[in-house]
């Protein structure tokens, strides 16, 4: 009724010829429906177009200019020069490498640990809701707060981590300057990202596992399959689309890492821990090179889209699921 069945004329808008056509005139009811739809859509969509769609298009345009910061001043069109600059900029490459490294350690750990927690929680047991809540706590806590907490935990002299590893467990023979070198700092950032994200993937995996029909498990158990075999043969194939979804989202999230790096190391020491977005932010808002900043963020967007497409294709190939 509301989604009218008149198909042929429905897409013709207000064209007078169509209305007059003998086949099927636009009823006043249909016209009112279209008008109402636009009225409901207009306020939100106009704001959306202004604050989101227009900036997306504009970002590419800005990246083609040597952007003049002063309002009204003319900016010089430089074509792809900002992109060429990136290709010859060692800090850009290091930031790209760090971003990739961060993604490479946070995605598998969040997947594996989130799935493990979900499997453990997918059973009748006491305090299940409480466990789930506590795992989820870091997810709802602001990035700013957890970043500052981790910075404090990994302080060289008097930080909790060195205190535990050095003074208590004697696993290390000196206080490590975690945030003072590239790879140790990136590992700290990876631990932070994993710790904050496990609860998210766990909730999604848990919901998916609960959707797996019990009958399948029982049938497999009757056939003598042990827990691990049942997990591989029954649960894993059933939640495959969800695994794909979580992977795609985590990869995108990993490439978008910003606040934690900004607040924990701010790209330092000496640009050793820059990631693409901290580097972009500094180029744009400290050095006011908007053209170069836009080029960096546009490259990031292209990488994210390419990765998402590749993954969706990879996950789609084996038939049978979804």
């Amino acid at each position: 009724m509301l989604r009218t069945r008149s198909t042929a004329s429905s897409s013709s808008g207000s064209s007078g010829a169509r209305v007059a056509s003998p086949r099927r005139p636009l009823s006043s009811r249909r016209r009112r429906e279209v008008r109402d739809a636009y009225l409901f859509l207009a306020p939100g969509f106009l704001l959306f177009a202004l604050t989101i769609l227009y900036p997306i298009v504009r970002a590419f345009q800005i990246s083609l200019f040597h952007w003049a910061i002063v309002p009204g001043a003319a900016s010089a069109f430089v074509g792809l020069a900002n992109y060429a600059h990136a290709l010859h900029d060692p800090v850009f490459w290091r930031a790209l490498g760090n971003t990739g490294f961060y993604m490479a350690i946070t995605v598998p750990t969040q997947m594996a640990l989130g799935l493990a927690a979900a499997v453990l929680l997918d059973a009748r047991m006491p305090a299940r809701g409480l466990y789930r809540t506590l795992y989820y706590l870091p997810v709802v806590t602001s990035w700013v707060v957890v970043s500052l907490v981790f910075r404090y935990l990994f302080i060289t002299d008097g930080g909790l981590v060195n205190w535990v590893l050095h003074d208590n467990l004697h696993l290390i023979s000196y206080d490590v300057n975690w945030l003072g070198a590239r790879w140790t700092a990136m590992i700290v950032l990876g631990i932070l990202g994993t710790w904050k994200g496990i609860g998210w993937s766990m909730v999604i995996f848990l919901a998916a596992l609960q959707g797996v029909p019990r009958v399948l498990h029982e049938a497999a158990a009757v056939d003598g399959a042990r827990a691990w075999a049942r997990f591989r043969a029954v649960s894993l194939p059933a939640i495959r689309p969800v695994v794909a979804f979580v992977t795609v989202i985590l990869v995108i999230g990993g490439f978008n890492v910003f606040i934690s790096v900004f607040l924990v190391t701010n790209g330092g020491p000496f640009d050793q821990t820059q990631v693409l977005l901290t580097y972009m932010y500094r180029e744009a808002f400290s050095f006011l090179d908007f053209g170069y900043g836009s080029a960096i963020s546009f490259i990031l967007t292209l990488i994210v889209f390419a990765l998402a497409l590749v993954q969706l294709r990879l996950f789609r190939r084996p038939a049978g699921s979804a």
Partner: protein
Amino acid sequence: MVVGNHRRRRALLGVRMLLLTAGVVVMLVPFVYMLATSFKPNTMVLEIPLQFFPRHPTAANYVQAWTSNQFGRFFLNSLIVAVATTTAAVLLSAMMAFAFARFRFPGRGLLFGLVLIALMVPTMMMLIPQFLLARHLLLLNSLWGLIVFYTGGNLALNTFLLRSFFQDIPVELEEAMVVDGASSWTRFWRLILPLSRPGLATAGIFTFLASWDEFTWALTIINDPGKYTLPIAIALFQGQHATSWGLVFAASAIAIAPVLILFAIFQRQFVAGIASGAVKA
């Protein structure tokens, strides 16, 4: 199922709970340590040997954070921005979602496609053009600049979420109202919205959280300390008082308290929101 392995089951449950508890400890240590630090007198914060819990706990950091640093002001700014954003974003996205879910009109596929594309584009990519736009609209350094862009930024996800909620409402109910001569607005306001309370709650909570915690945009457009929201106030505060960790964490605890309270109350909506978005997709 298989009988006679009752004992084995109990042992398995024990292992399960042991592993989960170990995980929970890891999840909680940073929080507990943050709270413990916030109750330490400032001179003791980086003392060696380290004490996990304060020997002489004091609320001085909380008093100082709240009184001497305009924290009430920042808290109020955050609240104004988050409430205004949530109200505007949920209302506007519900209207858009209603149009997408219940009407046929030229351009529907295209416009909805644009909404979906916006969900995939990294928000940071828009930062520079949004900054230039906000400057052009004289929205720099004002809470309006936060509200307008937070609202715009939350529309796509909420529209997507609410559209699927609205589609699950049986059309027959609306048809009855149409027969009675009800306008589209009446149907939206009297039928769709009341029937979608769980969906609206989920959308509202996520929008509130997103704007309460937002950091980057606020950092970029706000300079005047009177306009700070909590996230940038805390981050900049830590920058200025590099060693006053007790004070920083007292402020942080104040900032995350409302979120944790909301989370405790609306846990079901949280989990349902996360899970449904994924499992349905």
